């Protein structure tokens, strides 16, 4: 390709990216929020709690898509984030706290929540009036993000940032060694509730835009990439954010250039980055 042609192609790419700048901005907010929380999701070994919460949240979005088709419930159908939030926070109360004497083991409860929420979501979208409901559920609708949506996403990101930046000491100790933290006077249940509450909020706010696939990806893959390299907790969080941002921009470029669905393109870039880092880290060890 000659230089004028290359410049023209770059300009066209930039123009298309600018056309989707709200979508890119929204995706980056979701990426940053979920990748910060993801470090704790991976370290606390609650990846499948994240998956179940994401599935519950998607069932909330599916419920909204279903309700929007019925005359009586059309109003409710216009609030997918609120419905997703209600189901996700319900899931937080049900799944986040392990009771040693519970009749159903926690991993089994997570499995039940994941399966039932997934099934409910599929059933609801199969009867939804919106034609592309199934795609919205799986892939989200990133390209449809508006300035108003960005404000919603920023609103969900704020409590996450406050908790993780201002109260990082408490969040870290309570997740690393809750029993010792309790003996020193930390209110472990309260901090856990704050963590899981912000996790539920971030998932619910992101779900209708990013879909199950990308939200789950942001909660796991950038954090794993970061933990392969990081030597400190703050380093892990910074690298997780960086990995998520790089994957989002790369995925967006791929999506715009080759007309690919955006969420899977981002998730693929995220996975590729993790594999590259893993290979380098394995050789470097």
């Amino acid at each position, binding site marked *: 390709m000659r230089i004028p042609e290359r410049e023209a192609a770059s300009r066209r790419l930039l123009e298309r990216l600018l056309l989707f700048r709200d979508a890119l901005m929204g995706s980056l907010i979701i990426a940053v929020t979920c990748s910060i929380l993801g470090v704790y999701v991976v*370290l606390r070994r609650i990846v499948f709690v994240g998956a179940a919460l994401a599935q519950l949240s998607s069932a909330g979005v599916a419920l909204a898509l279903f309700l929007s088709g019925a005359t009586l419930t059309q109003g409710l159908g216009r609030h997918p984030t609120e419905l997703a939030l209600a189901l996700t926070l319900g899931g937080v109360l049900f799944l986040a706290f392990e009771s040693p004497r519970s009749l159903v083991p926690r991993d089994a409860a997570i499995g039940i929540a994941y399966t039932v929420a997934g099934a409910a979501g599929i059933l609801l979208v199969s009867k939804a009036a919106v034609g592309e409901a199934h795609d919205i559920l799986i892939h989200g609708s990133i390209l449809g993000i508006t300035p108003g949506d960005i404000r919603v996403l920023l609103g969900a990101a704020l409590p996450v940032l406050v908790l993780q930046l201002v109260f990082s000491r*408490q969040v870290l100790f309570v997740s690393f*060694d809750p029993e*010792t933290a309790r*003996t*020193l006077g*930390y209110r472990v249940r309260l901090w856990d509730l704050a963590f899981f509450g912000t996790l539920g909020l971030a998932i619910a706010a992101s779900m209708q835009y990013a879909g199950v696939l990308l939200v789950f990806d942001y909660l796991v893959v950038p954090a794993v990439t970061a933990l392969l390299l990081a*030597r400190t907790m703050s380093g892990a969080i910074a690298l997780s954010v960086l990995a998520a941002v790089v994957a989002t921009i790369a995925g967006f470029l791929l999506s715009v250039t080759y007309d690919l669905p955006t969420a899977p393109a981002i998730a693929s870039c995220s996975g590729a980055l993790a594999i590259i880092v893993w290979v380098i880290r394995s050789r470097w060890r």
Partner: protein
Amino acid sequence: MTALFTFEGATLGYGKHVVLRDLSFEIREGDYLGLVGPNGSGKTTVLRAMLGINPPLSGTVRRAAGVRFGYVPQRDQLNQSYPLSVADVVRMGRAPRGLWNRGSREDRAAADRALDQVGLTALAGRRLTNLSGGEKQRMLLARALVSDPTVLVLDEPTNGMDLGATTQILTLVKDLREQRRLTVVFVSHALNEVANAVERIALVVDGRFRLGTIREILTAETLGGMYGITVDVEHIGGRHVVMPHPGGSRFDNADPRTRGGKSAIA
């Protein structure tokens, strides 16, 4: 001496599940108490009641005013995936002083002193994953010392360690107790090890509880009755050795929790 912890008719357990019934005993200031019993016998339940994590199902567990815990959990419970250094973990031990406190110069100095006391200054920057079992245990001890405790509680601190590392930890705990005038509660399933370190022993076996001095507890009758095995006990040169007879165990099909009746205190 002042009683730091007083159990009065305390029944301990979780929900409707009773682990130990009707416990009445005291832990006094300056005590060096071994809480000994097999895995799953109820030691951790007593410990959690003491620490205030699990309140008793009935009766009371009173803690004297001004008690500050230095808790050393089982090191196997540590999640090594966290990218933390020895110094990071030790600094966690400073008790919270206000919601907004993010750690002061004084906190860092206290952590440095604690690291020095357990001989880990040179390893302050080392990652958790690169520590041996003994180093990890000393790190947890340093963390427990950071908040200047009055009571040191160690949960199975020598579990899975070789003889050298075990001796190092026991000597370190003994020295710390003397230097800081600590009350120490040492939880372990290794009776021989604990018997030669502590001053009093609380035996917890199959829901039964018995507390006394070394001489009171380390008898063939008491141990045989509690463990349901035949044992010999020797006291040689100030050291205590408990030797079970080979083939001396007696299995029966009765629920062990109903065998001994109420807890007894020697």
